[in-house]
């Protein structure tokens, strides 16, 4: 057993995450230009090499000169492109370790995108095209056109790769069943196309189709993928559900999909929610008893003023609802707004953390994270934000005597 998996077993013994103000990332980092360009077959510029060299030195990536040699040999063949992706993962892990996080992954450097990566490894989907998420940000959207199944486990290779060189604890982020279903068109479970019958009948049939679709994805795609990871020794699996609150009337389906995915499996499961009215999750998630931690984005809704009063922390007023859940999960407290280049100061992070600890009355139940993945920020900005997050946690620990 290597160092990472030893630590993982220690961390999750007894199925809890009791570590006060534990810090971790939430998902994707931007892919470096050198990776994007070389992977696309574009010419590698001197600036790309310099970027790889500077970050390699800054992050103390072992043997990073070998990456520079690889890049100088571009264009790359398919085997070299796989090697390039492995370098990207090394950089991603070191990025998060160097900045000082307790639990890391690789910024999802192996994956195309959280939804596309899952769908690309599943049967029963066909791609339909790009759809806007916001502004100029688009995602590729597929339709479910047949029974869903797992073509091949789609995080095994990266997990095995990362635990070979990660020094910090690993947490595997996995896109959740509800989100995959919600972000897909359904051309299989609900196929009525014309406005026949009453709207109430259509709604009822549509809901039955939605339930069938969501359960199909949970049982036949997500669950077997989780089982494969657990078989390899993964202990902390984060189910990402940015789509979780999309339709408040489907919260029961969201909860059902989580439970169907994880029930009876031996690992720690957490979930990530972001950019929603979190009040909508209550009381629905009272039934998600296997969820040991909710990682939730709040900074996007908060003030940038310092202070630990309710007035100073408007983005965090909902956290008491997570505190009061009967199964006492930890809260992954989002303290970095991932939509802007604004660098939160350590003091601002500190105050957000202190506010949450005061509400929960237990620092063991507060973990500290960005709101979401930092993929839309440059590495410089992401690093500065995370660096200040770690510094802010240290300030909070000092204040709390931890």
């Amino acid at each position, binding site marked *: 057993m290597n160092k990472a998996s030893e630590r993982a077993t220690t961390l999750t013994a007894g199925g809890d995450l009791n570590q006060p103000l534990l810090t971790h990332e939430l998902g994707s980092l931007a892919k470096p230009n050198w990776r994007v360009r070389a992977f696309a077959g574009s010419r590698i510029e001197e600036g790309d090499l310099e970027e790889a060299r500077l970050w390699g030195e800054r992050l103390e990536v072992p043997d990073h000169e070998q990456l520079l040699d690889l890049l100088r040999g571009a264009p790359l063949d398919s085997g070299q492109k796989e090697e390039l992706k492995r370098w990207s993962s090394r950089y991603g892990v070191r990025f998060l370790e160097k900045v000082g996080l307790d639990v890391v992954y690789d910024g999802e450097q192996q994956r195309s995108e959280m939804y596309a990566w899952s769908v690309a490894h599943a049967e029963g989907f066909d791609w339909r*095209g*790009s759809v*806007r998420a916001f502004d100029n940000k*688009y995602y590729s959207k597929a339709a479910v056109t047949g029974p869903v199944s797992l073509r091949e486990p789609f995080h095994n290779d990266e997990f095995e790769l990362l635990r070979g060189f990660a020094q910090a604890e690993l947490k595997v982020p996995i896109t959740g069943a509800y989100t995959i279903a919600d972000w897909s068109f359904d051309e299989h479970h609900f196929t009525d196309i*014309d406005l026949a019958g009453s*709207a109430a009948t259509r709604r009822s049939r549509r809901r039955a189709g939605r339930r069938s679709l969501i359960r199909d994805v949970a049982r036949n795609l997500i669950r077997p993928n989780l089982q494969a990871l657990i078989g390899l020794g993964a202990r902390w699996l984060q189910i990402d559900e940015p789509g979780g*609150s*999309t339709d408040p009337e489907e919260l029961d389906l969201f909860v059902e999909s989580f439970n169907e995915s994880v029930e009876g499996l031996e690992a720690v499961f957490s979930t990530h929610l972001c950019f929603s009215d979190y009040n909508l999750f209550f009381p629905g998630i009272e039934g998600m008893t296997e969820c040991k931690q909710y990682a939730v984005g709040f900074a996007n809704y908060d003030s940038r003023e310092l202070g630990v009063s309710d007035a100073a922390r408007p983005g965090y007023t909902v956290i008491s609802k997570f505190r009061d859940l009967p199964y006492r999960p930890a809260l992954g407290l989002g303290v970095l707004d991932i939509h802007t280049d604004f660098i939160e100061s350590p003091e601002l992070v500190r105050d957000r953390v202190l506010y949450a600890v005061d509400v929960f009355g237990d620092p063991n139940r507060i973990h500290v994270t960005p709101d979401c993945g930092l993929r839309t920020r440059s590495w410089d900005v992401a690093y500065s934000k995370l660096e200040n997050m770690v510094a802010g946690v240290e300030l909070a620990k000092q204040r709390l005597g931890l």
Partner: protein
Amino acid sequence: MQISAYQHGIYPRSETVVAATRDLERNRTSSEEVERRFREDEENFVGVQREAGLDYFSDGLLRWQDLFRPLVDHSPAMRAQKLVRWFDNNSFFRAPEIGDLHSAGGIVPSVFALNGELPEPRVATLPSPYVFSRAARGQAADTDRDALMLDLARNVLASVAGSLAGSGYRVVHLQEPWLPFFGMEEGAWEPFEDALRTLKDEIAGRATLVLHLYYGDVGPHAERLRRLPVDAVGFDFVETDLESLGRDWEIGVLAGCLDGRRSLVESVEGTVAFARRVAEALNPPALYLSSTSDLELLPLEVARRKVLRLGEAIRRLKDDLP
């Protein structure tokens, strides 16, 4: 009964434009190149509408980042702020933060890309004053949203609608998803009617005002809706039962029949059959056929097929109905 069809709202961008805007943000292409790609998309959308034989032309609002953005960006009194989920979709808009609209003066942004080049007659899409006031943030929104609704109608939307009506736009189509999705407080109906009247008066005799209600069931509001000061009310018939709307409307009706959120394309026969039922039951002076909501949430190829299907349906319907 006057029967016509048009495609309202934001139309999806091509993969080429999506890639170009992404590349621009990463300094991998020029703004001139992005502009060229947008123009191609706009011309293609006009071509699709022409091929479909639609009665009014839209530029597809392809450059709009969301329903409010061009208006917000052109006003010194408004800013596009936090990302907020667009109803129950995996799509987000930036909530308009609104300051003092009185001091900002009327704004008439050039929000319709093709302007002189867009074939006539034209249809313009704008946010309804109700959804605008409810989606907004900031002091004006926190203080009195109904007053804000009236301010938005008078100081923002009326000047834009008036300008459009004077330049070849024969239909001003207001998008209103808030009312169907969240409902409306009892006290807000009167200011809502005043706001709509402001817009209708502004374009009277020059353009038709259509209020389109989507993303929810508005059957319970039918009696109020049929008395609103607009030329036509639009329905999302995926959500609203035709039977809940009563009979014999004295204002026009837009039948949203093609689902703007599903990739399966409706049949011509089913669409025509339903439109015929609308015509028979509501017997409006004008019947418009369209999609339930913008096609923005569909990939371009699916949206294109829906527009063409809309064209097939309206041709058949015109043949069938007197």
